């Protein structure tokens, strides 16, 4: 409420000020039009008196100032004309100083001063010096800032710069610089003072208002940077030391932060590079509350960009030992500001790191040094929990990864893992994720066990439960993370099988610590990775035979067995079963019968002991059948044992339709196209007949329980099996049996009690269509099909 009132009042005052200004401006214009110098001075002074107000906030005052500024431009033109009409400029310069009020007087003085310099009747430097000196009369911060800003504005194009028309004798650039520096110093003093005047309760408000005014002060630095004559030498010897002196001595947090940033932004990169030491030395001297880390970060960012602009500038960096200086300065700043938040410290190191990566990409020792310093600062503290700090650490640790696109480099940094140690669990995980993502993005190949060991140590946040992190729920993030790890495991590769084995062993060592939650995600890729190695060895064995290798498939299989056993402790038997079967198949490819048999045995044991859910049983049995079908390594006896078991399992499934399907699937176990030894038509037929029986039983059960027969789907499926084997030439499958079956199906489907089943109808139709198609195709197969009539 109160502030509303203030704002309203302010509006009122502003409009009153504008009205007064416009009125006097009107009279001033009349005087200008009639060339009446006396009146022009009188009314312009009255007009400028509106700027004497203390009631406006900087924002509103600026509005008023801008209006006055426009009017003063007209007055300046008039003054210029007046000197053309014979009024001497010196006289004018005196005349405006007769004004009794200081603020209008000084505005007028600056305006005439501008004309004075243009007239070149006196050296520009003298006029400027006089102006900047006279402006001391305004000690009111707001009014002083605007007046001096006006002075700066009108004098900008009149500085006795090199190459300027106002350049006088030698060294006049110095005068220009001196002038701007002085104006800058005074403005800064006023600006800083503003903070300390007025009631304490409005401190925050004043801080805000000062923020609005900062560009007025900063503009001077911009002007300095625009002076042609300020070469590196002068910048180094005069400009920078003077500016810094002011910055340091003003002891004002806001000013120091803003001006340091200003210096960094307005002056050229190469100047910064050459004066790095001076600039950096100022940093520890700033107030403790100044956000030095941001300032330094910006500086390093600028320098990094400069370094990135071209390789030709890099020698400059080496020459000035930029890294050493920056590193040193950061150390000092951190030392000087005892209660700098840890986030700030990390920010600083992160910036330095980025800089180093840009300038000295080849100096890993530097990078390690930075990380080491960071570790020193971080160790002995609580693990970091502050979000800002952790964010910065992640940035710090990600930088080298991004730069080198290669985890190898990071693994060479001895301090890298030590920083990771300092992270809290959440951040550790996050960082580990970043690392993993980076590896995957860059498709980095990690090929030695040693590195893998280091890497997994680094990302242990993902690999195992860190202390205190024992919650059991599997949220999406966790799954995502573990999937990443799984992908990572797939990316580990060494061309040397022996090394690869070591890699696998290392990974195994790590993931086995991961606990039951992770194993389902991490074990499979390891197994597959191992099997990949097995297959590679197998291929190599064919080409390079007789080579003495310690890495044998057998050894790997042992390892794999042990690994899968880890899964058995957790209730994921179907996964373990799948893996056993995969292994069995790999063993099959290696012609290792006993191994393959063992794997099957394990799978069977799992099936019998662990898999109790009927649905899982169904999928598992199909897996078993599928795998077993492809096995060729087994002798008759083993195969018989296994197939026998498999058919046994099939027949024991709980639901009849499942039984039926499993049983007819078993028929494939007895007929392999590419193996003459496994062609047992009798048993194929047996399986099919058995499945038919079961299908019948299903129908009867349906009749009994629901009063209607079930779908004929199972029969049609069995028909398809018949057709398959018939086509393959199994002699036990006769045309008659097929025709009978078709008839049976038709009966089933036309029966009154049978429900209409569009899926079954469509299936049958396409099966018949297939028969017709094969007939039409002709040839041997076609002839065979011709026999089928319905």
């Amino acid at each position, binding site marked *: 409420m109160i502030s509303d009132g203030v704002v309203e009042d302010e509006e009122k005052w502003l409009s009153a000020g504008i009205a007064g200004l416009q009125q006097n401006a009107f009279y001033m214009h009349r005087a200008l039009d009639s060339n009446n110098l006396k009146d022009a001075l009188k009314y312009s002074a009255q007009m400028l008196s509106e700027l*004497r107000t203390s009631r406006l906030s900087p924002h509103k005052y600026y509005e008023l100032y801008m209006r006055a500024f426009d009017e003063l431009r007209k007055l300046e033109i008039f003054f210029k004309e007046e000197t053309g009409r014979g009024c001497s400029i010196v006289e004018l310069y*005196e005349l405006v*100083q*007769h004004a*009794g*009020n*200081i*603020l209008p*007087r000084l505005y007028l003085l600056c305006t005439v001063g501008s004309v004075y310099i243009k007239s070149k009747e006196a050296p520009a430097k003298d006029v400027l010096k006089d102006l900047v*000196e*006279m402006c*001391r*009369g*305004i*000690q*009111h*911060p707001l*009014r*002083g800032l605007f007046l001096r800003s006006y002075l700066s504005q009108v004098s900008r194009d009149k500085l006795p710069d090199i190459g300027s028309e106002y350049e006088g004798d030698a060294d006049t650039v110095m005068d220009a610089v001196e002038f701007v520096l002085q104006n800058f110093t005074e403005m800064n*003093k006023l600006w800083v*003072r503003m903070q300390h*005047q007025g009631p304490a309760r409005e401190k925050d408000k004043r801080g805000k208002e000062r923020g609005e005014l900062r560009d007025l002060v900063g503009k001077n630095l911009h002007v300095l940077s625009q002076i042609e004559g300020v070469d590196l030498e002068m910048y180094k010897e005069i400009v920078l030391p003077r500016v810094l002196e002011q910055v340091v001595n003003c002891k004002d947090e806001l000013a120091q932060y803003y001006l340091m940033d200003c210096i960094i932004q307005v002056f050229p990169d190469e100047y910064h590079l050459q004066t790095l030491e001076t600039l950096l030395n100022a940093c520890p001297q700033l107030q403790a509350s100044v956000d030095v880390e941001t300032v330094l970060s910006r500086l390093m960012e600028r320098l990094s960009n400069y370094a990135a602009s071209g390789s030709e500038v890099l020698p400059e960096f080496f020459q000035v030992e930029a890294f050493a200086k920056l590193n040193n300065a950061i150390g000092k700043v951190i030392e000087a500001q005892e209660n700098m938040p840890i986030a700030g410290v990390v920010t600083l190191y992160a910036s330095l790191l980025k800089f180093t990566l840009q300038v000295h990409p080849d100096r890993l020792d530097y990078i390690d040094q930075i990380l080491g310093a960071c570790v020193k600062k971080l160790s002995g503290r609580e693990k970091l929990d502050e979000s800002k700090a952790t964010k910065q650490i992640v940035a710090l640790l990600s930088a080298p990864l991004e730069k080198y696109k290669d985890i190898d480099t990071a693994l060479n940094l001895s301090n890298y893992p030590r920083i990771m140690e300092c992270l809290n669990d959440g951040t550790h995980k996050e960082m580990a994720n970043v690392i993993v993502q980076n590896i995957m993005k860059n498709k980095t190949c990690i090929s030695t066990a040693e590195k893998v060991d280091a890497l997994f140590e680094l990302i242990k946040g993902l690999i195992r439960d860190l202390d205190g992190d024992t919650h059991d729920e599997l949220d999406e993030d966790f799954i995502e993370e573990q999937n990443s790890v799984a992908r990572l495991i797939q990316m580990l590769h060494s061309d040397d099988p022996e090394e690869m084995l070591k890699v696998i062993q290392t990974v195994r060592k790590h993931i086995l610590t991961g606990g039951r939650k992770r194993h389902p995600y991490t074990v499979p890729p390891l197994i597959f990775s191992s099997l990949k190695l097995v297959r590679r060895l197998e291929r190599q064995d064919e080409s390079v035979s007789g080579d003495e290798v310690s890495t044998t498939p057998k050894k790997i299989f042992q390892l794999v067995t042990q690994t899968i056993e880890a899964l058995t402790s957790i209730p994921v038997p179907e996964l373990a079963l799948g893996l056993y079967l995969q292994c069995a198949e790999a063993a099959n490819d290696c012609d290792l019968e006993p191994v393959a048999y063992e794997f099957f045995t394990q799978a069977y044991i799992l099936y019998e002991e662990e898999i109790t859910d009927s649905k899982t049983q169904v999928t598992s049995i199909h897996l078993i059948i599928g795998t077993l079908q492809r096995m060729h390594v087994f002798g008759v006896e083993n195969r018989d044992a296994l197939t026998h078991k498999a058919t046994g399992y099939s027949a024991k499934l709980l639901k009849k339709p499942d039984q039926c399907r499993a049983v007819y699937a078993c028929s494939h176990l007895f007929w392999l196209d590419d193996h003459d030894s496994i062609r047992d038509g009798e048993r194929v037929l047996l399986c099919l007949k058995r499945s038919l029986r079961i299908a019948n039983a299903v129908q009867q059960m349906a009749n009994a329980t629901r009063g209607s027969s079930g779908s004929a789907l199972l029969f049609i499926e069995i028909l398809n099996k018949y057709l398959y084997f018939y086509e393959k030439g199994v002699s036990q499958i006769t045309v008659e049996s097929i025709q009978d079956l078709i008839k049976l199906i038709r009966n089933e489907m036309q029966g009154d009690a049978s429900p209409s089943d569009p899926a079954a109808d469509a299936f049958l139709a396409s099966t018949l269509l297939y028969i017709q198609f094969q007939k039409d195709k002709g040839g041997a197969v076609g002839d065979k099909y011709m026999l089928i009539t319905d």
Partner: protein
Amino acid sequence: MNYIIGAFKPACSITISLADGNSRKQVALKENGKTVLIPIFHNQETISGKISIEPILGKKVEHNGIKVELLGQIEMYFDRSNFYDFTSLVRELDIPGEICERKTFPFEFSTVEMPYETYNGANVRLRYVLKVSICRNYGGGIVEYQDFVVQNYSPPPSINNSIKMEVGIEDCLHIEFEYNKSKYHLKDVIVGKIYFLLVRIKIKNMDLEIRRRESTGSGSNTHVETETLAKFELMDGAPVRGESIPVRLFLSPYELAPTYSNINNKFSVKYYLNLVLVDEEDRRYFKQQEINMYRLSETS
């Protein structure tokens, strides 16, 4: 330029024309609401000219003699009736007789002592006048006046020290000020500096005033009148310790006169520079310093 006082039906008109009236420098003076231009003379100058008397058409003026007087007078406003003539010179122009037609008389006061300057103050006036009187037996005399101004130049003083002083209120405000001279000519510029040694009060602004102190009479009858002739803002806002504020005050826009001390034992006029600091509660803190004013020859 003709100015007739006290003659309701003048029988003749009197014209006083000074020998170099056209070329002589003049000042504008305000008198009875009118601005008139009055010639300027200096000490020990010769004042000469012509006086023409022209009777009204067809009339003749009988007289007991015609004379011209040069008078230097001091007039106190609180005692209007009394003129003090500090200078009085007379030249007889004509013996008693009659004037029938226009008649012109030359006159001359050579190297007149006019040590004092013309002055118009608050309570006192110093004037110079030429008075032409036609003495008559009847109808009263006919009198005509011609004012003129006397200004006397002083050479630049051989010693002209600056004014420098440190003043203050203990633990509250300490300043040091410096004016470049203690003696200024009328078109001079006061240049100086105010240096703040200690500031514990909230200053709003700082002005420099020029004050004129006119004292008339003597003894118990002394009247002192102080006028502020100039008020010039030097500083806006509150300075902090260590600030120094420049002073540059042009005297030319102000109507100043030289310092007069004890003119004919009647009056003195002194000038002061008054430095005034005003705080936020409008309390005034000031320090007054006398300065000596003098008139510098404009050609020098």
